[in-house]
């Protein structure tokens, strides 16, 4: 089993979700995070004092997949989420030892 973690631009989430669904990914866990990197934030002004907002909003997606699917899933995300502009995000893959479906107690492949 692998865990694919992707950090992408928020307005790409909908496209990524659809592409993954088409590929056959049935579940994922998503959260709103802030990214820090080459892409710079913006400046806000309050009563003449400027604030540089360094962090940029991102969407973080976690998907547990079969070993075999990991590369495809990464490929789909990278393809769909890319805009070619700085800040498109990262995807990384790590191994996991086991996964359990809470409802049934099913394990591993059966649990995804």
């Amino acid at each position, binding site marked *: 089993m692998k865990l694919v973690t992707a950090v992408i631009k928020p307005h790409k989430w909908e496209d990524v979700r659809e592409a993954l669904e088409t590929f056959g990914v049935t579940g994922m866990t998503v959260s709103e995070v*802030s990214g820090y990197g080459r892409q710079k934030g913006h*400046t806000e002004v309050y009563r003449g004092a*400027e604030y540089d*907002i360094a*962090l940029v909003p991102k969407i973080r997606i976690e998907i547990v997949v079969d070993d075999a699917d990991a590369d495809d899933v990464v490929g789909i995300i990278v393809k769909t989420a890319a805009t070619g502009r700085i800040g498109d995000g990262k995807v990384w893959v790590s191994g996991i030892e086991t996964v359990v479906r809470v409802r049934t107690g099913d394990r591993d492949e059966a649990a995804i």
Partner: protein
Amino acid sequence: MDGYYAWMLMATSLVLLMTAPGLALFYGGMSRSKSVLNMLMMSFSALGVVGMVYALWGFSMSYSSGIADADGETGWEAAKLFDSPFQQFGLSNTDPTSYITVAFQMTFAVITAALISGAIADRVKFSSWLVFMPIWVTLSYFPLAHQVWGGGFLSDVDGGLAALIFGTVGDAADKVAEVAPIDYAGGTVVHINAGVAGLVLALLIGRRKGFGKEPMKPHNLTLTMIGAGLLWFGWFGFNVGSIVLTGADEAENVAQFTTETGLVWLNTTLATCAAMMGWLLIERIRDGKGTSLGAASGVVAGLVAVTPACGALSPIGSMVLGVAAGVLCALAVGLKYRFGYDDSLDVVGVHLVGGLVGTIGIGFLATTGGLFYGDGIKQFVVQVTVAVYAVVWAGLATLIVGVAIKYTLGWRVTEDVEIEGIDFAEHGESAYDFAGNTGRRNVLGASEPATKKHVEEGVKA
């Protein structure tokens, strides 16, 4: 009549409250959280800009042929369409006894301009909006106000539209239209006017990126509900303050004041109650549930519809009108999806349709002159004609300003700004920062100290 006067002070303040923060909140809550500040700013700036313009030339253009200045002089009227902007320019020689009238009418011009902003939410350069407003009120609002309330073409004057249709009555010195058009507090001047302007601009400016595909749901319905409540409250100033005393002496005026205002207050409220329930009923039938956005919208639809009619109906008639307004506006807000114009916050569905329901509904429901009261079709014909005229006038005027701005300053922000959020791009701010609320410092979303330059050197200028 210092009681009447005290009421007018209050009524005028109430109408100002309608724009800021009433309408600002009603609209702001419906927009997305990345554009709520821009939405609020469109209402607040309407007050800033149109308020000053009204004192400069708005009052003069609307009423200076009918309301004498401090020297007892009146200005010219152009073809019953508008008055001289110079006669009482800057209120410099306006009679102080007219100040409360100036103030009351000013707040009407302000909110009419502000209403339009709902149709073009989230995508318009703030500077273009600031330029649009003064030109638009000059071309569309001041002339219509003059025509309807200043003794112009849409009033009951000899030579006016109504007089042209069904002739006049009265002796030579005092000839008036047999059937006078009825617009108690602004069905045509305010709501049809703003609704049409919204429609024209929405078409001209085009849809928001993602319209019809992406969800664009209200980001904070509690704001919208506060706004709806304040609008209702302020509307008592709007409608009940629109009484025109016609008594021959003080006693008659007091008598008129103490009966007419009660009726107008009641009608305003009953139509609004009925419209709220009417809107909820449609939602219940169509969507299975009544929503709070529906209730808030029904409130406004009812208030809009009863605006022209509140002095002409019975309380029961007002409830009938209210239900009609609630039902029809609830149905009308879906039209934008069918026809594909992005009237973001439903200015057309609520103000244009509601304004038409009220203006035309008078033809059916007026206790004097209404079809349902067996008084024939004349009032109805006059009301429809006036409504159509207002639609055409507002449409043309808006088209002229809208196109002129489109090809000079341009209306729209870039696509990137739409995605990123107009609040940052146009105002350099974000509306909310809740990060700290459980004790953490405002860490995420505002992570850099203010730049040295500004914080240490303070003001540059």
